[in-house]
């Protein structure tokens, strides 16, 4: 049997104040999956995905990437597993758009010539190249979210984790992030999206995982689970509720 891309065994995490974040998580993730991690606020989605790249240390249990513990080479894990945080404002480090995107590569001590080339390529890919000298503070919400994605893409991750990628975005902003997500999946990356509202993405997902109280309650293809969503405090997408099954959100 081939090893899964990411394997999580009996993962538990308790915060220093005793709150239990996640309990007994077992999960295997294969290449090219598009996973939605659903659950109401406080169900442990953020806590779980922060374990994937070692930002949080588990109280017990282990995580492997391609069969090796992620803590064996944490920088490799963080390069391979990119993470976009929920709040775009507080994850921006650079004082210009260009510097912000270059930050990760500079940390890896990549040579300057390659950085300049790679950053420009990613900025073009996400249609941000005309903003390269702007201060990130002056960008719109959608542009900031795209910038955060650009900062991860330069590191060429195989797996990308998104924490609530659509929160606080308007309709065009949501559409453009959705397009990026679909493109990234089509180019062969594994996508994991933590969300409490899946209206926009459910049609593109290959797998739906529902969490509650820090536990995985359901795991399966979206079409089988969509009717159970509301039992866990997550809104069922309109098209499904109206009896049309799962329909793509954009035309």
């Amino acid at each position, binding site marked *: 049997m081939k090893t899964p891309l990411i394997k999580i065994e009996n993962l538990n995490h308790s915060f220093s104040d005793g709150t239990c974040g996640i309990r007994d998580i077992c999960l295997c993730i294969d290449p090219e999956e598009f996973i939605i991690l659903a659950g109401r606020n406080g169900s442990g989605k953020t806590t779980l995905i*922060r374990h994937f*790249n070692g*930002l949080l240390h588990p109280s017990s249990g282990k995580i492997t990437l391609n069969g090796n513990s992620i803590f064996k080479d944490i*920088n490799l894990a*963080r*390069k391979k597993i*990119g*993470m976009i*945080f929920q*709040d775009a*404002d*507080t*994850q*921006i*480090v*650079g*004082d*210009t758009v260009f*510097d912000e995107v270059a*930050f*990760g*590569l*500079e*940390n*890896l*001590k*990549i*040579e*300057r010539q390659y*950085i*300049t080339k790679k950053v420009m390529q990613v900025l073009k890919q996400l249609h941000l190249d005309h903003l390269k*000298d702007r*201060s*990130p*503070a*002056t960008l719109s919400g959608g542009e900031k979210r795209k910038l955060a994605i650009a*900062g*991860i893409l330069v*590191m060429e991750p195989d797996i990308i984790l998104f924490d609530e990628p659509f929160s606080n975005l308007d309709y065009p902003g949501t559409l453009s992030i959705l397009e990026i997500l679909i493109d990234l999946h089509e180019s062969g990356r594994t996508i994991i999206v933590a969300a409490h509202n899946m209206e926009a993405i459910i049609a593109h997902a290959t797998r739906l995982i529902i969490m509650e109280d820090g536990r995985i309650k359901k795991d399966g293809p979206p079409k089988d689970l969509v009717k159970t969503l509301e039992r866990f405090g997550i809104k069922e997408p309109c098209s499904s509720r109206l009896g049309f099954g799962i329909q793509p959100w954009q035309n």
Partner: protein
Amino acid sequence: MAELTLFTYRKGDSLLHLLDVRCKFILLCLTSICIFKAHFSSVFLFIFVLIFFFINCRINLLKNLSGLAFFLLLLVLMFISRSVALPGDPVFTLFDISVTKQGMTDGALMVSRFFTIMMAGILFSITTRPASLKNAIQWLLKPVPFVPEKRVAVMVSLALTFLPLILRQANQVSDAQKARLGNLNKNPVKKIVRLSIPLLKKTFVSADNLAFAMEARCYDEDRTDPEFHLSGKEGLFFIGGLVLSACLVLY
């Protein structure tokens, strides 16, 4: 928020815009120190040089003088205090306070020196991106022992990105309190306490998120060195700057 003031960077391709920041920064420091030895003739020489550069970057200083009102007022006060404080031949006497000729000359010289430094500073900040100033500081601190120049550079750039964020959060908190009629309480101490507690809380949460976001992108102090662009005129400017500094000290 990002208002255009006299001190903010403006895009351009003038001589000073293209000049290497390190050269610009060193010359600014050098001439600012030397000008405190200067007399009228060399101060005027310096002012002529500055006017040339203002024209070269197409900044109309006269239009912008209103932004300097406070500074000009300060200069006037400085002139007045100087002219009455120095003993010498009285020009006229008012209520036993005599304005002396020596005082006026000395005051005028001091005011013109401060004014010139101010102009040079404005010119520097208009033509220099904050990000490249940060790079110059990092480069200049490199030979200084016991100063971790890369850490300093990251701190400077975080300060530059986080100041607008903190200011915006302060505005939000203050608006939220006004919306609940918090402005009816006129006690300034209470006001500050009520403003600062939620603001500090927000700032700590942001700092926590930021630390996670930097870690997720492999933050390391041993980073790729910044890149500088030489315009090819640095040698010329350096010699010019040295000559000017010599004039300032000698004449």
